[in-house]
């Protein structure tokens, strides 16, 4: 056998055939370094003893949040060739196992080519990074790839940002090293101070086991002893050498998630600098607020903490980009801030793990991708998560909801966790559990849960029911609030954030069922010419979900003229089957808009909205 192997090798050599080579990773000296430090050992050490949890983690989007750009990790279409946006033509190319992007320079004609070294995201979109040429500092390819729609778009079109930013995007150089690294890797050290080059080091690329369970070195070391392992199995206790968030008190367990899913800030400049060099001091199981400041937006500035006041002074718009005016978070991915304000968390035992399971249980019948979509526990998909504590409500659900027990109106989450946060071109459920109140909408501008389903009903209609069912005193309403359907009013007069939420709700099946579908195209047509790219994308998706519009030809990033023509075409198609509108709608039975439509558009809240996801 040995002789055979040797002779085969000699024959191969004499023929000078190239040896088969696997994919080669991008140069390691021009991207963040993966180097486990401070007791971190990386997820590869965990697999041998925890194959099931390791496999479900691998199936989750946490594991692929940041990846070295290699075949299998890169999901974008790099065979697309030339991509033209905003008058600039970019190119993407695959060269063997390498991925390259060509970026037009500020001056001159020749593209500047860069090898993609790293990716961010694998669920909704993927972002591509290349070496800036300075140390381990990364720069961002200005286009991102939408995974569901299988297309490239400019980065700033993927976020809800003012048109001025979309037209003139700021440089994203070092963004990954300064910001993304903090939550998209495990045990990060940005090692970038001032304007100098970064020497970024992380224990593991991606959000891995030790991000939630803490450093594993000691755990791995002591458990090399099989006698110890079997003793622990027999005793059935947890292992004190590692953190299991499921065994932590509910607040500490929630803080494990909150280390990333929150709006936070360093407690001081010194803290920031230390973190940049030595990494976060927080370890799972610690009290989170001992080592970082969780930002809270106080409705009354007098109630704000000194650091929050400083943030507001130094960064105007910081709070507005993240919070509604009553302090409720309005962007997705920051759910810890929501839970902090939550009575079930403050006075009960609610934690993230009450509804979410970070590892898919073996008896979960869903496909791993379906579970990974929102990491919801099987028993938290309906009302079970709520009625486990609120038993009395569960036993007589219709008496509480005044909706049929099997309807969307009797789903706890639809009323108490409505879709009032925004992220990734969609509406996300609020994680502050509250009850719908018309007054809250009047004070904050945040759409109320009732009308997010009953888009065709006015605020007065909602106020009447909340009074009849729950004894809420109806507030004073202006004529538009009293008469115009809330969905129409939000879409025509709301700010870009509210328009995005409304456009999304118009494509949400429970809302379409409750509010009817016939009137929706006429109003979604308005989103096709919205100045915000994200609103147009959402509006187009909702429109395509309606009967007769599945094949509607529309490009959200086309020129204003083309978009305007698409709006007219949508209206024409809508008017082919005219229906008499219910009271309050600003259109007539032929589908022609009344002067009220124009008047409402004139009332639109034009203040720039820049939601920082």
């Amino acid at each position, binding site marked *: 056998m040995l002789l055979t192997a040797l002779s085969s090798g000699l024959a191969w050599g004499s023929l000078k055939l190239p040896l088969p080579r696997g994919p080669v990773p991008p140069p390691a000296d021009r991207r963040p370094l993966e180097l486990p430090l401070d007791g971190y050992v990386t997820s590869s050490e965990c697999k*041998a003893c925890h194959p*099931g*949890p390791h496999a479900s983690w691998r199936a989750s989007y946490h594991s692929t949040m940041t990846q070295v750009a290699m075949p299998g990790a890169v999901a974008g279409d790099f065979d697309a060739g030339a991509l033209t946006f905003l008058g600039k033509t970019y190119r993407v190319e695959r060269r063997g196992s390498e991925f390259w992007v060509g970026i037009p320079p500020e001056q001159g004609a020749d593209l500047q080519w860069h090898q993609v070294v790293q990716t961010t995201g694998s669920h909704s979109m993927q972002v591509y990074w290349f070496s800036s040429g300075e140390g381990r500092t990364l720069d961002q390819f200005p286009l991102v790839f939408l995974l569901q729609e299988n297309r490239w778009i400019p980065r700033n079109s993927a976020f809800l940002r003012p048109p001025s930013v979309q037209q003139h995007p700021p440089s994203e150089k070092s963004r990954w090293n300064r910001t993304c690294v903090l939550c998209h890797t495990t045990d990060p050290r940005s090692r970038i101070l001032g304007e100098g080059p970064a020497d970024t080091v992380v224990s593991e690329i991606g959000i891995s086991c030790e991000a939630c369970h803490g450093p594993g070195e000691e755990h791995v070391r002591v458990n090399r002893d099989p006698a110890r392992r079997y003793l622990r199995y027999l005793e059935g206790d947890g292992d004190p050498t590692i953190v299991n968030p499921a065994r932590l008190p509910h607040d500490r367990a929630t803080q494990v998630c909150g280390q990333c899913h929150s709006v936070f800030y360093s407690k001081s400049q010194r803290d920031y600098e230390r973190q940049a060099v030595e990494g976060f001091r927080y370890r799972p199981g610690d009290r989170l607020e001992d080592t970082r400041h969780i930002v809270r937006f106080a409705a009354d500035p007098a109630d704000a903490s000194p650091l929050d006041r400083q943030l507001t002074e130094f960064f105007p718009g910081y709070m507005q980009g993240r919070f509604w005016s009553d302090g409720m978070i309005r962007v997705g991915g920051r759910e810890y801030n929501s839970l902090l304000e939550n009575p079930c968390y403050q006075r009960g035992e609610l934690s993230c793990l009450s509804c979410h399971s970070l590892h898919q249980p073996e008896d979960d019948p869903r496909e791993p991708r379906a579970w990974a979509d929102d990491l919801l526990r099987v028993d938290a998909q309906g009302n079970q998560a709520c009625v486990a504590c609120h038993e009395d409500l569960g036993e007589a659900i219709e008496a509480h909801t005044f909706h049929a027990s099997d309807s969307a109106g009797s789903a706890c989450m639809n009323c108490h966790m409505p879709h009032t946060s925004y992220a990734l071109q969609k509406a996300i459920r609020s994680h502050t559990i509250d009850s719908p109140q018309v007054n809250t909408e009047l004070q904050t501008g945040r759409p109320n849960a009732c009308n997010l389903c009953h888009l065709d009903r006015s605020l007065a209609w909602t106020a009447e029911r909340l009074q009849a069912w729950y004894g809420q005193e109806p507030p004073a309403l202006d004529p538009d609030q009293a008469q115009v359907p809330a969905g129409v009013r939000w879409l025509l007069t709301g700010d870009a954030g509210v328009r995005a939420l409304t456009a999304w709700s118009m494509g949400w099946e429970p809302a379409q069922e409750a509010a009817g579908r016939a009137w929706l195209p006429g109003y979604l047509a308005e989103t096709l010419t919205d100045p915000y790219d994200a609103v147009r994308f959402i509006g187009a998706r909702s429109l395509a979900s309606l009967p007769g519009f599945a094949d509607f030809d529309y490009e959200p990033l086309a020129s204003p003229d083309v978009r305007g023509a698409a709006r007219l075409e949508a209206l024409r198609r809508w008017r082919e089957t005219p229906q008499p509108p219910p009271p309050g709608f600003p259109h007539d039975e032929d589908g022609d808009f009344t002067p009220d439509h124009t008047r409402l558009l004139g009332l639109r809240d034009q203040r720039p909205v820049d939601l920082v996801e």
Partner: protein
Amino acid sequence: MSESPEDAGLVHAHLRFGWWSLFVFLTLGVLLEALHALKASYYLHPAHETRRLMWTLSHTHGTLLGLMQFAFAATIRWGYAPPGGRRALASHCLRAAGILIPAGFFLAGLVLHGGDPGVGILLVPLGALSLMLGVLLTALNLQPSGPDP
């Protein structure tokens, strides 16, 4: 070389043990293939990687140790087997190994502790010791004569 009734009994015992081992552990192999065909989560789920390993080891060890019984029977039949008490001890050891090792692997796969096998795995080192002793006794005490022409 004439075969004593005692040797004939041993040969028969090892042949019977070998054939039954083959029947049991080849059947197990077929069952494991059926679990693949049925995509049985109990066997194929990534969390049960250790079960898959243990039962595969049970199947292969059981089969190979079954074949080893034939080898020992042939060694006796051809007159090379160790003499007297050592022959009996080697026989006991090899048959014990033929049970302990595959049964240990099989039981170890029934109940898992994360990536670790169940406590049935403790039978495996016992079986391994028994196997080594049986093989060593046979190897050290092989009769030089062999069968009569």
